[in-house]
């Protein structure tokens, strides 16, 4: 039991530490591709620190939701973080690690963020939450199909067992995992509202969906929102990494193994962040009502994988 407690504390700290790094890495890669040097790799850490010191501004017509949403958002994502062991894979306990529960914790966070968007009464927040909820509704079937395929391949509902089997196998469990990796990559792009779906950097009301919802947030609430978005990105990247490239994942607890695994994870993470940055700078933002056809393509692609996996 105490091994699990240790894992809880350890995993949360590792996630909180690494998350902002990946975000600024992606920004760095994008800046490099546009020929400018871009902000330092630790810029996100400075932003968070600055935001924490600033005062919080609430709109007069916003209700208690505005105040509660950031904390609930952060809590949900931290609990979701417990579901994805980055470094050390213990035995699953009491339903922690159930992949559906992981998905719905993300949905809980999104639910509160959307409500917060609507709360201030500004049309930007309303548009952001309306578009966010529509997109997440459309992508949901694809996510479920991909997770079902994962459950089908790894014969278990629990992410811990998935990572354990993939770590035990060392290299790729089955070739189909590469295809699943691509689908997971698409889901990552959509869930963390990266470029083709939504532009995280700008505040132009036509293009921002995720940013629209947190437009009214300020000070420490905005910091929480930024941090939770970063944690979400890290978790999804961790799933992708630990399933496709399980090299170095540690199942038995040794201090030395821990350090190596953490180091390896940071390296693998930054490579993946680089890939995401390159992918983002290679495509332009798609018009909002062209997204359903993109998601239909993704859905078709993932069902194709399953048909191959099931029938072949």
């Amino acid at each position, binding site marked *: 039991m105490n091994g699990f407690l240790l894992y809880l504390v350890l995993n949360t700290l590792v996630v909180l530490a690494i998350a902002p790094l990946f975000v600024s890495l992606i920004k760095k890669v994008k800046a490099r591709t546009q020929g400018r040097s871009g902000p330092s790799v630790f810029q996100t850490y400075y932003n968070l620190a600055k935001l924490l010191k600033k005062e919080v501004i609430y709109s007069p*017509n916003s*209700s208690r939701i505005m105040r509660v949403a950031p904390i609930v958002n952060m809590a949900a994502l931290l609990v979701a973080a417990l579901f994805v062991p980055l470094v050390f894979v213990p035995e699953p306990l009491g339903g922690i690690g159930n992949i559906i529960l992981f998905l719905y914790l993300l949905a809980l966070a999104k639910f509160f963020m959307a*409500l917060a968007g*609507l709360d201030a009464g500004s049309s930007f*927040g309303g548009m952001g939450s309306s578009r966010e909820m529509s997109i997440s509704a459309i992508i949901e079937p694809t996510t479920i199909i991909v997770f*079902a395929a994962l459950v089908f391949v790894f014969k278990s509902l629990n992410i811990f067992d998935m990572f354990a089997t993939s770590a035990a196998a060392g290299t790729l469990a089955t070739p189909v995992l590469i295809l699943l990796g691509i689908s997971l990559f698409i889901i990552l792009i959509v869930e963390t509202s990266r470029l083709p779906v939504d532009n995280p950097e700008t505040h132009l009301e036509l293009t921002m969906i995720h940013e629209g919802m947190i437009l009214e947030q300020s000070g420490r609430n905005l910091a929480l929102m930024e941090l939770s978005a970063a944690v979400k990105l890290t978790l999804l990247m961790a799933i992708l990494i630990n399933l496709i490239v399980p090299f170095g994942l540690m199942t038995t607890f040794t201090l030395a193994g821990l350090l190596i695994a953490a180091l390896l994870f940071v390296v693998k993470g930054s490579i993946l962040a680089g890939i995401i940055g390159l992918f983002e700078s290679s495509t332009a933002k798609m018009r909002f009502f062209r997204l359903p056809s993109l998601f239909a393509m993704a859905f078709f692609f993932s069902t194709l994988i399953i048909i191959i996996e099931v029938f072949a």
Partner: protein
Amino acid sequence: MGAEFFLLVLLLLLAGIAVPLATSGQDRRISRTAAHVCTIAASAVLAAIALFVLVTGQEITWTAYQPFGFFSIAFVIDRLAAFFLLIIAAVSLCVAIYSGEYVEHLEGGSRRNLLCGCVNLFILSMVLVVASANTLSFLFFWELMAASSFFLVMYEYTLPETRKAGIFYFVMTQLSTLFVLLGVILLYAGTGSFAFSLIRSPVSPLIPVAFLCLFLGFSIKAGIIPFHKWLPYAHPASPSPISALMSGVMLKIAVYGLVRFLLDVFTPELWWGLLILAAGTASAVLGIIYALKEHDVKAMLAYSSIENIGIIFIGIGLSVVLTAVNLPVLAQISLLGALFHALNHALFKSLLFLTSGSVVHATHTRDIEHMGGLSHVMPYTSALFFVGAVAIAALPPLNGFASEILIFISFFSSVSAVDPLLKVVMFIALSLFALTSALSAACFVKAFGSIFLAMPRSEESAKAREVPFLMLLGPAILAGACIILGLFALQLFTLAGFAVPEPDMLLIGVLLLVMAGFTYVVLHFTASREVRVSETWGCGTLSQQPSTEYTGHGFSEPIDIIFSSIYCTRLKNERMFFDEKNCHFREGVAEIRLLKVFEEYLYLPVSRASLRVATAVSRFQNGCLDTYLLYVFFAVIAVIVYLGWFA
């Protein structure tokens, strides 16, 4: 032992009917509160009996009336019946508390006594339907339930839309009675008895036909897609406690009917399961898509009931398919998921209906376009509505999620064990199921956002006041039940003696609190604590107008466009210009019109056609004596020819 208590429940309910009807002359609050007290007492005792049977598994039997030979009105409460009795008891308890206050604000003078009496009759008939031991008494109380609920829907009979709702409701209940009656008679012809007894091996060809009729009868009453049209009319037309009872409990009686016949009478085949699964998925998806376009709060809740009934049918259908493919463990999990979702839906749907009833009572309108900003003036109602919204959107700590995850788990684990062709069907059903649960989250963000958040969009909602205490106590109990059922789902299942792969929601809830506390503490020490209130950012405009807010329509507009093929959306935008070269824009009309697909393409054509046939046939009676004698002449010749031929 329990039979006396069951009798006590019936007597209390009968008293609840008799007292208000007897004093229906004068419009005094005493008789109405007496009726509500009877309901509360009866539901409390009923809940006790139900829990006793559920936990100890000991059946209560009582043959009430056996006039002669084979036909008898008898009651058996086994665990399935007890579960549904628990649903009835819980919901009617809270609705009675709520309507204790709500009815006082209703107009209708002494007619309100009739309403309370009729509610008790409605609850009594539902209790007796669930407890009935043979198909005849099931049918007897099924029609009594239909009749009493018809009176409740027609309470505010002076409004034109109540008339339309009454006609829709009456026609669809008669249709459902037709199919259930046909099913019961064919069942009797097939098995020769009224009892809920398993059909032995020599299955006559009538049995599948009997199943189909019963399935149609129950799906009409449950509001499955092609027959759902009465629900979005009946619920907004009837008073809120009534629509809470109807949506929360009456739809579950139809589910109970289906499960009782599937478990106890039929040995279902594979195609039965697929039929139920298909109906469930269709209703789930279309139900929530139609809910998203509604801007009448109670119609939206009615459509979302269709969606949740669809989810329950998905669970049942899945369990039937899995038993047919002999995977009994998974079948039990999905059936448990479906039944648990029935209980949860009963709780959070009646919570939502009651709270929306308070909102409608406060703002005197049902249109969410004119609401907004109610969380400031009605804090408790908005908190209760919020708990209901989170529960129905199936978000983790609460009970909506606890039951949907069971269905998800049975889907996920059955996918790996079933033969390939069925696997494709499973995947499609799974993806549609996921789409519905995501859309329901979007729908209730829209609902909660446009009703309670931001600025009020009309004077009534600005001047709205919090509802009296009783109208908060009922929903509060329901909200508490939702939270408890959510957190202690695994413990309740183990208490009831079922091994279920449900994740321990208590642990998740505790972890959420721990993490929230952790963040709060970290922020407390590191972040600055100044807070300032200033204008919402509106690109520099000084005072923020409520008209700039995102209303319900605006929120669901992307989904209207994305699912335009299902809504058959008609986009209309004409522009009029000053000059012929269309440069100087004068005025224009832009409109998105969503078609009522089922009504315009199925219900109205059928009724127009039948009316045309009827007028043609009724010309047979054209009032001229010669034609009448001509008919007699032809009839006599026909008989003579018949005699000549046959004798």
